[in-house]
């Protein structure tokens, strides 16, 4: 089935990338959590240069 036929069962003009938004929000949230963990959980506890 080519794109044209497939588009008959799914209308691209009504497409809203809700899966994309969800996926990107999850990834960005994961990166933020990982950054905070490294900053507060690893970097700061190591203290200053001795």
């Amino acid at each position: 089935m080519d794109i044209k036929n497939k588009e008959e069962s799914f209308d691209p003009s009504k497409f809203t990338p809700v899966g994309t938004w969800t996926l990107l929000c999850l990834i960005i949230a994961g990166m933020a959590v990982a950054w905070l963990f490294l900053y507060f959980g690893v970097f700061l506890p190591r203290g200053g240069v001795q």
Partner: protein
Amino acid sequence: MLTIEIRKLALSHFAVAFGAFGLAALMGFYQVLARSDLIPALQSPGVYFASVSTHGVLMAYVLTTFFIMGFGYVTAVSSLKTPLWNPRWAWIGFWTSAVGTGLAALPLLLGRASVLYTFYPPVQAHALFYIGAALLVVGSWFWAVIMIVMHGQWKKAHPGEPVPLPMFATTANAILWLWTSAGVASEVVFQLIPWSMGLKDTVDPGLARTLFAWTLHPIVYFWLIPAYIALYSFVPKAAGGKLFSDELGRVAFVMLLVLSLPIGFHHLYMDPQQGAGFKLSHGTLTFLVAVPTLLTAFTITASVELAGRINGGTGLFGWIGALPWRNSMVLAGILAAAMLVLGGFGGLVNASYAMNAMVHNTAWVAGHFHLIFGGTTVILYMATTYYLWPRLTGKPLCSSTLPLIQLWSWFWGFVILTTAWHILGLLGQPRRISTVTYHSPLTFAWDPYILTMVVGGTVLMVSAGLFVYILAKSYRQPETGPIQADEIEYAEPLEPVTRVHPLLNGFSVWNIALAVLMLANFGYPIAQFFLIKTFGSVAWGY
């Protein structure tokens, strides 16, 4: 049209690129073995640093520059549907770069240019290395000029029409490269060549590092933009859909051009020769340059979500399973995105002014840039080559399954290798060391990750060999006949683009914005070396 001349031109560039890649991959494999200390007979700091310097130069400069030039010529003629402007210049550029590569290779392979791919003075290489590197860059300027001229000629012949997105992005990359390479070219021509030839006794490492920082970060985007072109131009079509937004792509490429240049001081956070204010400015802009990557992530993910839904995927994430995972371009796009997320996170840590101190000069940094460059960028070069190879050679690929195995193994090799390096970096292992004494209590914690690194390196060596094998075997297939440029199919936008804002169709204003940003961020930091008294350094080693 992909005329015989264009096919020959592109294949010549790809031959140099992937020849260099194969040699550099072998050296990378040797390096993980040497660093692991598993085979004591391999221990030789001299050989190790000659190898790591050659590996870096071949991967970062030769593979990239030749691939980008070859891909650029194909993109220009196939997207604009016009003949190549000035093929003679293209060949002059090719041979200039090829001769430069050969000249640089001699001292590299003889251990007379073990200055790593950053060639930071006062470590000194043989003059031939710097001259060869300069010629490699000069040759690429011919390509850049051809791309810019073709972009301008097409716009003149098609007033008011939007330049096709692949060519718009290629031109952005050509302009970016001219700006980018000016820094390192100045360093090499005015500092390193006269110094290495004995015309000057000393060199100013502070100025040299500042000029290299001008180049060091945007060069990553010079490498990455062709990979992004593949994401925008090939992946949506290969997935069975359309590009979600052409305009968002243009915005992303313009932002990459303007924002990737004035940010290089995040490589100099620990350097004393630049002030904290300028470092903070560069650091802030570094976080801003994540925006065009986020725009790209959104546009491409939305495009493949559209394709997945057209293919029958339902639910919040059902479209992911409905994608054609057995298409090498789609697979590479997904794997590249996964590595971009992991590598991008590492980049945010590197760019964090304070936290950078924790990972500075550790194996973490090597893990980060290998994931972004070797992983995200090169896997898309590979998929693009699988797509273009039959169209350039007129011969089909020898297998449809082997490329998938190769791409998966490339992905897992890099995940294994760089995860180990990130952890080793946090455990304090320095980068740029040939080996360590692994029987010290200090380094016991490193042992499992060293073994993991060897596993990752082995997988990558097999994958690299498989890539070269697939191309070579396919090249030996019987020819199936000439293939027309029309067969290079670019993704259509979801909403047809008939007009775009002039700011998203040309670069005049953006060049001015870039000049202002560069003056603000590099003007005084460079001028200070001529306004205040500084002291040079004599050469080290070699």
